[in-house]
């Protein structure tokens, strides 16, 4: 009995290690990319897009087109984070620009 249990456990561990851990699916990528695009559109409305956000969006698309959804999802999430930072910057600068003014 003990032998059977150990064998079962070994099989489970073997299967688990053979499967890619937390692999991103195409659906994961699409969700992450949509979120990034939404944030970037908001940054665009504020006239404050960053080149790095655009680069990560392009990298996400490229990785997705080659089927690498891990890399695509990671790039899309990075793009979303950067777009949100640019929104924060544009929003806070609406008043803070005056702090730098010469007078």
């Amino acid at each position, binding site marked *: 009995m003990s032998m059977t249990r150990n064998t079962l456990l070994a099989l489970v561990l073997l299967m688990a290690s053979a499967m890619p851990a*937390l692999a*991103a699916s195409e659906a994961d990528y699409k969700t992450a990319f949509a979120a990034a695009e939404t944030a970037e559109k908001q940054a665009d409305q504020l*006239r*404050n*897009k*960053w*080149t*790095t956000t*655009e680069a990560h969006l392009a990298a996400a698309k490229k990785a997705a087109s080659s089927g690498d959804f*891990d890399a695509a*999802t*990671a790039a899309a*999430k*990075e793009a979303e*984070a*950067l777009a*949100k*930072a*640019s929104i*924060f*910057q*544009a929003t*806070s*600068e609406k008043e*803070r*620009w*005056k*702090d*730098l*003014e*010469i*007078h």
Partner: protein
Amino acid sequence: MRVRPILLSAAAALAMAALASIAASAIAAPDQVDPAADAKAFKKYFTDKFPKVKLEDFVNGPYSMNEDMRKQWQEKEEFPPYEFALEAGKEMFGKPFKNGKTYADCFPNGGIGIRQNYPYFDEKEGKVVTLELALNRCREANGEQPYSYVKDEMASLTAYMAYTSRGKPMDIKIPGDPRALEAYENGKRYFYTRRGQLNFSCATCHVQSPGERIRAEILAPAYGILNAMPIYRSEWNGMGTISRRFVSCNSQTRAVPLEPQSDEYRDLEYFLSYVANGLPIAGPGARP
């Protein structure tokens, strides 16, 4: 999954924004728009910061800040790199359009010696009109295709027009139209607003750090920074207009540049030119 780098880059960007705002919070902000007071304060800031620099020398940008660079520039001016563009611009300026008219028909005084009056606020349009914009409008009004705003033909034409104004003091007017004041204020806001992943405003380099090095370059003071435009820039390996300068500055801060001659850039040019009133036109210029 690259969760950690994502969090780090976002956190770094937010931290930069927060730090920059804390660092600058020592300066109070005015509530009223007063261009004349701004221009006075602008001049005082730079002349106090660089008491040894002659007033009219600020238009020479980095050369006014560094003696070694000035010597190199003076030698270069014997055979200036903008000379070809200047000659081409003169030729283009005099060549009639297909309808027989020329650029001279579109501008006061035939376009000669008028650079110091640009940009101006057009009360009919309710917007700022730059020299580059006026040149393309002239072309279109005469059935010609507009030029690229950033280099080549536009740089040559503006180089020639600037040359005919060399030494004349910048003379930008803000009429009593509230929209003109608003355009000026928008330009000022653009100048001081931090943007791009590097969280830099125009003022970060050209007010806080003129004379300092950023990589191999010596930063120019904002005071009179447009007076030598257009410029031959070694970094560009060619000529560039004011539009090109704004676009490349934005890119360097990792901000997506706006379209050349967007309202924001036109207003920025209006602000920067107004606060340089009295300083001589020195274009075309050459920069590293």
